[in-house]
């Protein structure tokens, strides 16, 4: 196995891109990443995407995007793991380069969600859940997370307001991210007064539907050091799974796939949670942020929510999260999100995060969750030199 580094990054602004198609968004991100890396060719292109068939009437994205960006001829394929598609694609790129079979791999995550009306997108997102035993009962993806949040509040005696710190932190960090969808802070009042979506989850607990694309270029670390001084090494990479349906889990309030993938990544990197300088976690809903912090070893069970309350997740806190706004405020173009997290971690480790910079950041962790916790991909990245 060879060490693998990230030698280029690219991203589009997250938002409602009425004038751009899926292929244009993906193309913008891929070309930006290739320019950043200083490359003109690659051995493969892996595309992370969840819903192109359902929302854009388009599958076969590997060949489509490879051709569109001038890479006709390369190996190219789409990788799907619901909202975890982006990081799942990065992991496939990592495996390909680490194995020695491929040298330069581009990974792009892309999602174009605003082509359809809301109820169609909502039904599409629910495909991350069990069609026969969850979805047919009229559940939405939000409502599955609401079931978890309601139970969490019941078991641990937590109030809804206790979660406010997650969206407030996310919006604060997004305010200075030029690629973020919501570039303005929110107040506690805004959180408390937000419209209910699926009780107890309100609009401010929820990440938005959005369009966007992000890309990274991977290469063997030995080569990377030679021509990209700002390269970042992948020191841990793991993908773990759980049951697709929430009702099939022995303990719905413990994200066992998140715990398993974090442990595997920690072991590979030879570190523990205390060595992590910042954590780009999957705050699709504020309850997901709390459960992720617990599963990844940053808080005891039932205590994840208090990290937000006590300010420990801020840029200067004990464990900064969502440093560019997270899913909540940067935006959550589902299949692209996992790659955005990695692009943002690279900016932190290159010390190019501007006002969002986590001081002396050397090691960053990203965690991308597919479905309500069924596929979880964790990456640990380290600054070179």
């Amino acid at each position, binding site marked *: 196995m060879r060490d693998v580094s990230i030698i280029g990054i690219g991203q589009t602004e997250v938002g409602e891109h009425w004038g751009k198609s899926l292929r244009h968004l993906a193309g913008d991100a891929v070309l930006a990443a290739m320019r950043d890396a200083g490359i003109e060719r690659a051995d493969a292109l892996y595309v992370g995407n969840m819903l192109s068939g359902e929302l854009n009437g388009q599958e076969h994205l590997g060949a489509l995007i490879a051709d569109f960006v001038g890479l006709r001829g390369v190996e190219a394929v789409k990788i799907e793991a619901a909202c975890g598609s982006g990081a799942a694609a990065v992991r496939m790129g990592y495996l390909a380069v680490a194995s020695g079979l491929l040298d330069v791999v581009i990974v792009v995550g892309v999602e174009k969600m605003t082509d359809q009306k*809301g*109820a*169609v997108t*909502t*039904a599409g997102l*629910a495909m991350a859940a069990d*069609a*026969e*035993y*969850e*979805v*047919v*009962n*009229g*559940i*939405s993806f*939000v*409502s599955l997370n*609401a*079931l*978890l949040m*309601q*139970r969490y509040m*019941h078991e641990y005696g937590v109030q809804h307001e206790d979660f406010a710190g997650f969206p407030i932190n996310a919006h604060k960090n997004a305010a200075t991210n030029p690629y973020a969808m919501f570039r303005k802070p929110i107040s506690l009042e805004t959180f408390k007064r937000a419209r*209910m*979506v*699926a*009780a*107890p*989850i309100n609009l401010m607990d929820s990440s938005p539907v959005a369009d966007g694309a992000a890309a990274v270029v991977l290469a063997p670390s030995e080569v990377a050091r030679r021509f990209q001084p700002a390269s970042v090494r992948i020191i841990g990479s793991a993908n773990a799974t759980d*049951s697709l*349906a*929430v*009702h*099939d889990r022995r303990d*719905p309030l413990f994200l066992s796939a998140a715990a398993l993938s974090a442990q595997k990544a920690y072991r590979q990197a030879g570190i523990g949670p205390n060595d992590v300088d910042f954590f780009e976690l999957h705050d699709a809903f504020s309850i997901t942020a709390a459960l992720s912090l617990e599963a990844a070893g940053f808080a005891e069970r039932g205590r994840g929510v208090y990290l937000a309350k006590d300010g420990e997740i801020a840029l200067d806190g004990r464990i900064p999260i969502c440093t560019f706004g997270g899913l909540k405020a940067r935006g959550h173009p589902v299949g692209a999100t996992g790659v955005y997290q990695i692009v943002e971690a690279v900016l932190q480790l290159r010390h190019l995060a501007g006002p969002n910079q986590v001081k002396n950041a050397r090691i960053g962790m990203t965690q991308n969750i597919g479905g309500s916790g069924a596929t979880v991909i964790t990456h640990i990245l380290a600054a070179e030199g």
Partner: protein
Amino acid sequence: MAIPQNWRLQHQRYRLTGEVCHTCGAKLFPPRDVCPECAKPAYEPFQFAGKGEVYSFTVLSDAPAGYEAYEPYPVALVKLQEGPLVTAQLTDVDPQDVRIGMPVEMVTRKLTEDGDDGLIVYGYKFRPVLKAAANG
């Protein structure tokens, strides 16, 4: 879901038929043929009684396509007496009155319909357990 997909699930939808593990005795719903507790075969059908209690719940006000006509409606994780959790709508209840721990029982109701000419999908929902009439 397409007609064959719905038809295949008739025993689960109408009767809550699951399976029981030959080795450890775990009761499984939905049926899955391999026991998640001990990873041994579990082919034998098992009939659930349809009684349980609310483990968690929510109320949908942004329904997915096909369910908009019913919103707002309550959805729950129901803990069956025999062990498993099942995801289902609650019915015959004011969403305001739903509580964690509330005893519920299975009933058969319409889940959705596929337009004016399409399939009407029936399945399980759960309602609060009816108390015996005082002067029964």
